[in-house]
Structure formats: structure tokens, C-alpha cells
């Protein structure tokens, strides 16, 4: 697992949320979920920015597992959005992705 893989995974997460955010916010009727979606996106932007600014290398195998998990979550979110699943489920999945992103950033600091 390299720094390049981490940058790619965090950028993919940011871009996925960004592409979906206007539609998800428009669908949301719940203030808590709306606030949560905005916070999740802000955190994804921050995690990617942070990683780009700290371009050093790591070979931690645990990091590889986390990045694989993050990629899997992104696939699930894409499927859920495509199938128009309920917003709360999508939000929970988004929140879990951002949580994994935070764990990745914390691990490689």
C-alpha cells in the first residue's frame, strides 16, 4: 500500500460524495441528515486535502485493508443511489466511508 493508493482512495470518496451531494440534499427532509451529509462532505474534502499535503510513503498492511474497505463502501453507495434506496441507509453508508477515511488519515500521520 502506497501513499499514491491512499490519495486515490480519498479523492474517489470526495468526488463520489460531491457528485451525489446536490441530489441527496434536495431529497433530504430531515435536518439531522442534511447536517450530517454536509459534515461528511466537509470531512471528505479535508481528508483528501490533508493527505495530498502530507505526501510521504507507508507500507502498512493494515492501511491496505482500510483502503480496500473504503473502495468497497464506495461501490455500495453507488449501487444504493442507483437503486434509490432510502436516504437514511445511504447516509449511514456515507458516514461509514468517512469514518474509514478518518482512520486512514490518522494511521498515516
Amino acid at each position: 500500500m502506497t501513499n499514491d493508493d491512499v490519495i486515490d482512495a480519498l479523492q474517489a470518496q470526495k468526488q463520489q460524495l460531491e457528485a451525489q451531494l446536490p441530489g441527496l440534499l434536495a431529497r433530504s427532509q430531515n435536518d439531522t441528515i442534511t447536517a450530517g451529509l454536509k459534515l461528511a462532505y466537509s470531512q471528505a474534502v479535508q481528508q483528501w486535502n490533508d493527505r495530498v499535503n502530507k505526501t510521504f510513503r507507508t507500507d502498512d498492511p493494515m492501511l491496505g485493508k482500510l483502503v480496500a474497505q473504503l473502495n468497497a463502501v464506495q461501490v455500495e453507495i453507488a449501487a444504493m443511489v442507483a437503486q434509490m434506496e432510502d436516504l437514511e441507509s445511504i447516509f449511514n453508508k456515507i458516514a461509514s466511508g468517512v469514518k474509514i477515511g478518518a482512520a486512514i488519515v490518522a494511521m498515516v500521520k
Partner: protein
Amino acid sequence: MMRLSAATFAVFFVLVSLTGCGPVKEGDQILADAIQASNTLQTYYNDLAQISLDGWENQAVFNALLTVPAPSDQQYNERLEALRTRADAASKLSLTFQSLKTFRDPKGLTSASAAGQSLGESLKGISKIPGASKLPEDEFGKAAAGLLDIQRQQDLKRALLAMTQVEQGFLNMFEAEQRAYLSIVSDRADTGEHLVELLAQNKMLNPGSFLAGLRLGVAVTPATSDPAAAAGLAIAKISAQRQKLEWECATENTRSMLSALAAAGAAIQSGAAPNLIPLEDSTAHATACLTEHEKLVAPPASGNSNANKQPNDK
């Protein structure tokens, strides 16, 4: 012992080349190519700093339109500072090569000493930047020590050896960081694409105006219909992909250019005649890709654009 002899011979070869007592044209060509490569590297970093600024702007507007808190100023400022420092180091690298050309003239030593010292100071600062790779520190550290002490004619030997270390240091730094360079540009293009969609949804931009950029050989009038908007958004998406491809081209050729520059320096050190063709080719290709990328991201000329025309504007 053999290595030392070869290095000494190589330095002698370069000195002879530069002082006009030998193959002057070849010496001039090496330095001319090195100057051109350094200038291209400076352009690369300056363009990347501008792209970072544009990306920050896109992000801030995207967030504001969705009432998401603004992104961190500190993160973007740190990145801009890092890129500007690299551009500055590339500029000083070019100035040092330019000064080395003046060694044929005995009066040139003063300007070469000053330029070498300036580059040395610049390299010392690079490792302090947040996000800097640790890889170049050794090369840059040794080079800076050599360049900061060019006081006498005989110190030129050390300066030339230091330049080889500098070239290798720039290559190592570029290779360690190039994924981040690509990510910055890719993210800027993708967020730009998402921002265009959002602006169109908010009636702040007519996506149909992107049709005016089609290369059909005839002028296309921007339309405000739904099909025109869909076609315009498709063009915006392709434009984002073009920007990414051109930057990938610029990055790969800049890396090749630095590799060829380091190889030329290593060849001189070993007493061999450097092959300058890869250096010249990659510099030309990197410059072409940087120019093409700049065209793609440049704002439309004032008065010639319909990009901001409102759907209901006459």
C-alpha cells in the same frame, strides 16, 4: 580510485568545454538544454500553483451554493506555499545554469558564485515545507553545502558535482510527489465539472453555450433548450477529461525530462558524452502539454464568450 579519476576527468571535460578551450558548442548545448529544462520545471510548478488556486475557488463556490462550510484556508495556503517554493527553486536552478555559461568569461565567476549561493539557500528551505518528501533531503543537503561555498575558481569542480546532486534531488522529489500533482489537477477538473452542473441547475450559467466551442468548422449558436443544456454538460464533462489527460502528459514528460537531465549529469561525471536527445525531446513534449493544458483552462476572452449568458438573455 577509478571513480575519482573518472569524475575528475569529467569535471575537466566540462571545464574545458565551458572555458572555450575545447568542444565549446557541446558545452553550450548541455547548458542551454539544462536551462530550458529548468524553465519548463518552473512553469510546471507555477501552473500547478495556479490550478490549486482555481481548485480552491471552485471548492469554495461549490460549498457556498450548497451551504456547506467553506474548506480550510490553511490547507490550501500550505499547498500553495509548497508549490511556489518548488517553482522558486526551479527558477534558481535555471539561473545557476545560466551563470555557469558565463564561466568562459573570467568575470563570470562572480555571477555564478552568487547564483549558486542563491540556489543553495533555496534548496535548504525546501525540506521545511509541509508535505515535502524526505527523499531529496540528502541530495539537496549535500548540494546546498557545496553551492553555498563557491568562493574560488577551484570550487567550480565542487559546484558542478553539486549540480548533479541537485538534478537527482529534483527527480527524486518529483517522482515521490507526482501522484499528488496529478490528484490536484484531477480533483480541480472533477469539481469544476460538478460546479458547472450546479450553476446550471441554479440558472447561473447556460450550459448550451459550451456548444459554441465545438470544432465543426462553423460557428454554433448557443441555445437554451433542454437538449442544448444536456449536450453542453456532456461537453463540460469531456473538457474535464481533456484537462486531466494533458496534465498527465505534462507530468510524465516532466518526469522524463528530469530523469534525462540527471542522466546527462551522471554521464558527464563518468566521463562519457551525454546523450541530449531524450532531454530535448521530453522538454519539448512537456512544454507542449503545459501549453495545451493552459489553453483548456484559460478563461474565455472578454467579449467573446457566451458562457455566462443567462438562459433568458436576448
